[in-house]
């Protein structure tokens, strides 16, 4: 053995500061300027938090969250939230289990899968946590806190269950997911009014989930159509996708709200929520088709050829060989589409629906708060809701991309 020499000792903090903050005159100047900017911004935020009166949020919290949902039926939202928390926990656990299984097969050690402590959850989901804490701090009774705590408990429980669930029985868990989703929807929608009175942040979430779910099969068909060797089928798919992608969502929403009725038999008068849901579905399908097409292109042509050589029929090749691989490759892009739709649901406020953004305007027109410029308080609150969701999801998508090994050969 050769004599072991230690790595040169570097004084960590000093060296870091010198390298990253003071490596030259220009760099030092930049450090000073941006340091000042950070300090000023931090002080501005503190001053805003200290000097603002958040009564408008306290009074209208229910309006922001659920809009016009009947207040004596709010338990339905709580039950649905529990069901969906359980579902989210199960999904997270299943993904983690799949990644762990894959790591075992390939011998690749996935860091952060189990280790790095329990704090990694906090680090990953802190924006959610922040938003929840702020919301709960604005409530006046203990009930919402209890509901939230139970929801988190169910999510953790679901995660734990899915991780420990024997692999051979996993299909039952997959089956449980749509059942939980449907049950959550059923609990919320069975109050007698359906979804026509839904509003607030609840409406944004519903439109995101329902829009994506409804658009998904349509989008897959369009993507397959676009790759079809039949010129007519391909032409129809390409035409639809390009037209929809060429126009803003708001034109489709206007179409849904003002013109959809003209295209339906005169006895059919759908509610506004239904109308925008139709518009969102038609819009989203084109974008999902492009996401799926990207996934289809990622499947090597050798896969199809091998399946053909085995004598599988075209439909079976698509269903058993191509689509499973393609859909897995699309998961990160699909999350991206999910985020983009999540943000786009605010557009329904522009055509007169009562989502969370509309709730902000509505709260600002109440006699107690009218013309006091309180949008500077309500809008950041709404912004935080969207930011927490989008930011966390986009980071989770990146993480998922790494862990599922998408893009690896």
């Amino acid at each position, binding site marked *: 053995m*050769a004599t072991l*020499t230690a*790595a*040169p000792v570097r004084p960590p903090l000093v060296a870091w500061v010198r390298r990253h903050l003071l490596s030259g005159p220009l760099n030092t100047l930049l450090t000073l300027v941006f340091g000042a900017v950070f300090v000023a911004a931090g002080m501005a935020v503190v001053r805003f938090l200290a000097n603002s009166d958040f009564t408008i949020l306290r009074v209208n919290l229910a309006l922001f969250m659920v809009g016009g949902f009947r207040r004596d039926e709010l338990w339905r939202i709580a039950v649905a939230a529990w069901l969906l928390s359980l579902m989210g926990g199960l999904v997270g656990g299943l993904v983690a289990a799949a990644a762990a299984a894959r790591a075992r097969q390939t011998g690749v050690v996935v860091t952060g899968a189990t280790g790095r402590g329990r704090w990694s959850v906090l680090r990953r989901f802190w924006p959610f946590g922040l938003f929840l804490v702020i919301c709960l701090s604005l409530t006046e009774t203990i009930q919402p806190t209890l509901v939230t705590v139970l929801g988190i408990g169910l999510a953790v429980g679901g995660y734990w269950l899915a991780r420990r669930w024997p692999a051979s029985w996993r299909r039952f868990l997959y089956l449980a997911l749509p059942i939980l989703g449907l049950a959550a929807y059923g609990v919320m929608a069975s109050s007698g009014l359906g979804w026509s009175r839904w509003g607030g942040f609840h409406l944004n979430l519903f439109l995101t989930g329902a829009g994506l779910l409804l658009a998904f099969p349509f989008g897959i068909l369009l993507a397959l159509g676009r790759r079809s060797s039949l010129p007519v089928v391909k032409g129809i798919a390409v035409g639809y996708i390009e037209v929809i992608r060429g126009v803003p969502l708001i034109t489709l929403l206007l179409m849904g709200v003002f013109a959809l009725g003209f295209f339906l038999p005169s006895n059919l008068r759908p509610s506004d929520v239904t109308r925008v849901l139709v518009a969102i579905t038609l819009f989203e399908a084109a974008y999902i088709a492009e996401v799926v097409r990207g996934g289809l292109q990622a499947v090597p042509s050798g896969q199809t050829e091998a399946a053909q050589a085995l004598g599988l029929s075209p439909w079976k090749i698509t269903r058993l060989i191509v689509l499973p691989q393609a859909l897995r490759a699309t998961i990160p892009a699909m999350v991206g589409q999910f985020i983009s739709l999540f943000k786009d649901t605010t557009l329904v406020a522009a055509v007169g629906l009562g989502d969370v953004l509309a709730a902000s305007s509505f709260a600002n027109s109440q006699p107690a708060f009218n013309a006091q410029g309180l949008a500077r308080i309500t809008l950041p609150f709404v912004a935080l809701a969207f930011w927490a969701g989008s930011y966390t999801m986009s980071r989770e998508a990146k993480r998922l991309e790494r862990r599922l090994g998408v893009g690896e050969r």
Partner: protein
Amino acid sequence: MISSDFTDATRTKNEPMIVLEHVDKFFGSFQALQDITMSVGRQEVVVVIGPSGSGKSTLIRCINRLEKHDRGRVVVDGIELTDDLRKIQEVRRETGMVFQQFNLFPHLSVLDNVTLAPRQVRRMPRDQAEELGKAMLARVRIPEQAHKYPGQLSGGQQQRVAIARSLAMQPKVMLFDEPTSALDPEMIKEVLEAMEELATSGMTMIVVTHEMGFARAVADRVVFMAEGQIVEVGSPEHFFSSPQEPRTKLFLSQIL
């Protein structure tokens, strides 16, 4: 024992071109190079072999400062590599490097790849640079590809363009980092031939490779590295027929 080998070698070729003294290199806490001392004489061809991860690539990347060594001295043609940017650029101007993955610039034509550095670094007029470039392409026997793009060439052709690109800077030293490892078998020969021609013309070369045939035929000295250290140095005949160190014997028995 190692040092005695070196004094022998350096005596045969006067005044060394490259001198490394007690060079250490760390990646984090991993020591990639450990107390490397060697010198390469003018017009000498040194072949570095060893198992993967033994620090061969790191060694030659320290010579043109693609990696910064942490301790010791690296001197190329009398210029010591320090944090002085001017010294670094001086060394790089005199040192050509050929990479495993070719690293040709895909957005430039073959001729532009070859003339970029002479024009921008050596401030050479365009006509002169193109003449030089064409001469270098002729030297690696692909003058007819001058106006194609790298993506249109085979791997062997690309690697020969990469050699021509380095030669166009008229370097005193050429470094080869596994130049044939990314090539299909039938293309290895054309690249090795170009390198052999270069060696015969008197270029100082350090070659990291797994091509033992090349080492045997062309090298003045063979250096065997393992775990960041130089284990054994010798002339090819000596090295391949009667290796001294057990690690060398093991390695040779595995690959031959």
